[in-house]
């Protein structure tokens, strides 16, 4: 009887995990539109392509060796998994175990994808597509996979040894405040500095070209984020429910926080502010979502909106062109959420945690959270800077100035996102296609030569 119940719950858990994996994958196209709406008409396709490119590159690397580096047995010091253990997912596929490990592989693979895609917002409008794909592959390999191992790979009774932040330091990060958001945010900062500003920034206006895209993208992100956070319970249980409801309420509070700052500072509550508040709230509640109660979640959310709304202006003062505010939203929001666990977490919600500062737990856990957060920040920033610098002096990051002015969509992809007037298509000749269809190629050439 007990065995049957356990079997049923394993099936239920696996179903929720697979569903969550699909939800998390959807976040990256959602992010593509969130970012894509914020860039100008001439570079929206490139932004979408950077996100889809991250899916392509990281998706392939993940199944070849990424999972192994992240969740293979630790090779020493909690720093890295054994890359040879699950090459090509060997030993995992065809081995039907309890909670399907393959489901976990899929779920965690989507995290790797979105983390890389998040960085793209910092270098919008100006980077050669090939350089981005190369960066995506290298960054995933030497930054994301190790850091995810530190944070997400738990040691277990059957002899598996995991990463140092999860097991030795014991800093809490339920769904990726450190491994995903601080990691991507710190990388974005290094990349924005080394790749350099867009031509004309910050003098020329670079307005978002499609705010409905931004809102729609934020909505898709929020939807997918329920898989990201509640799925991280790895079970269809009450803890997943807590993570789910906190992902809902903290995010709602963050919208209010962001809009409040805007109303006071700028005089208007903007749609871009609301969409940004959604993401800021989601980022901040991510590490904390299964450790805090309703009041903790609401406070984390509203303050995430406030902090991030204030932080996005810093790039103008400090002079780095983090084009779509990856630093202001993901680094700041991720730091806030990760530290907030040390203040607001309560064992009443999750007895695998400890009590935070405001629940009589002292500052001990807050200190551990800070060590985890800043370790990831420093590692990501330094290693990203090195990768970015090497790419800069070898293949080069930037499209030419002319191409940047004309628009990166045309230069890198030979496409334009929107056909506003009939003039363009009317006057352009369909030479290649038309020739191929009519079998016309040879006479056309002959007549030229003749």
């Amino acid at each position, binding site marked *: 009887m007990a065995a049957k119940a356990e079997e049923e719950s394993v099936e239920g858990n696996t179903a929720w995990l697979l569903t969550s994996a699909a939800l998390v994958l959807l976040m990256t196209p959602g992010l593509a539109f969130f970012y894509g709406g914020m860039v100008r008409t001439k570079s929206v396709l490139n932004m979408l392509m950077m996100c889809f490119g991250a899916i392509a590159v990281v998706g392939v690397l993940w199944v070849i060796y990424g999972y192994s580096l992240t969740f293979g047995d630790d090779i020493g010091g909690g720093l890295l998994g054994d890359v040879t253990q699950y090459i090509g997912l060997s030993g995992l596929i065809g081995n039907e175990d309890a909670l399907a490990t393959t489901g976990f592989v899929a779920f965690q693979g989507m995290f790797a994808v979105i983390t890389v895609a998040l960085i793209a917002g910092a270098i919008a409008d100006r980077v050669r597509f090939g350089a981005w794909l190369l960066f995506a592959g290298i960054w995933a390999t030497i930054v994301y996979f190790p850091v995810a191992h530190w944070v997400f790979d738990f040691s277990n009774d059957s002899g598996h040894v995991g990463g140092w932040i999860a097991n030795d330091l014991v800093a809490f990060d339920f769904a990726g405040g450190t491994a995903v958001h601080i990691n991507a945010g710190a990388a974005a900062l290094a990349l924005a500095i080394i790749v350099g500003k867009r031509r004309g920034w*910050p003098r020329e*206006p670079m*307005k*978002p070209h499609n705010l409905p895209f931004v809102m729609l993208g934020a909505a898709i992100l929020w939807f997918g984020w329920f898989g990201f956070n509640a799925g991280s319970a790895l079970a269809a249980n009450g803890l997943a429910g807590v993570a789910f409801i906190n992902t809902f309420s903290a995010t709602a509070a963050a919208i209010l926080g962001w809009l409040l700052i805007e109303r006071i500072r700028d005089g*208007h509550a903007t749609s*871009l*502010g609301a969409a940004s508040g959604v993401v800021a709230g989601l980022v901040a509640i991510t590490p904390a979502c299964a450790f805090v109660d309703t009041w903790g979640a609401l406070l984390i959310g509203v303050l995430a909106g406030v902090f991030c*709304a204030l932080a*996005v202006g810093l790039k*103008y003062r400090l002079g780095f062109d983090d084009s779509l505010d990856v630093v202001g939203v993901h680094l700041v929001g991720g730091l806030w959420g990760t530290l907030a666990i040390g203040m607001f977490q309560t064992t009443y919600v999750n007895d695998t945690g400890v009590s935070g500062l405001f629940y009589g737990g002292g500052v001990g856990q807050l200190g551990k959270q800070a060590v985890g957060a800043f370790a990831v920040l420093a590692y990501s920033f330094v290693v990203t800077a090195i990768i970015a610098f090497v790419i800069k002096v070898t293949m080069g990051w930037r499209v030419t100035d002319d191409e940047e002015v004309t628009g990166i969509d045309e230069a890198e992809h030979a496409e334009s996102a929107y056909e506003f007037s009939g003039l363009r298509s009317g006057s352009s000749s369909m030479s290649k296609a038309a020739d191929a269809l009519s079998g016309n190629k040879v006479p056309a050439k002959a007549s030229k030569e003749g």
Partner: protein
Amino acid sequence: MKLVTAIIKPFTLDDVKAALEQVGVLGMTVSEVQGYGRQKGHTEVYRGAEYSVDFVPKVRVEVLVDDALGDKVVEAVVEAARTGKIGDGKVWVTPVDTVVRVRTGERGTDAL
């Protein structure tokens, strides 16, 4: 012959079109344009960064008319496009040497 060019607020276009039909105008060319006069632009804010938008969207209406109809057309446009607020636009008239109907090759007033 005259070319009457009117820069108007976009939402007055339907009224202007109706008024022109009323006075016997048979065709017109309409385009979306941007510019500013005394109305100037406005300010937009994106994540706290202010952008001044100098050019305001307007509609340009162009009508070719016989000399006799010129004044009536101008009056019709002005009446239909006026809201009394700043930014209502402008109408001007320029003389036209020749007009040719492409289909038939007719010239002058026959081509109107």
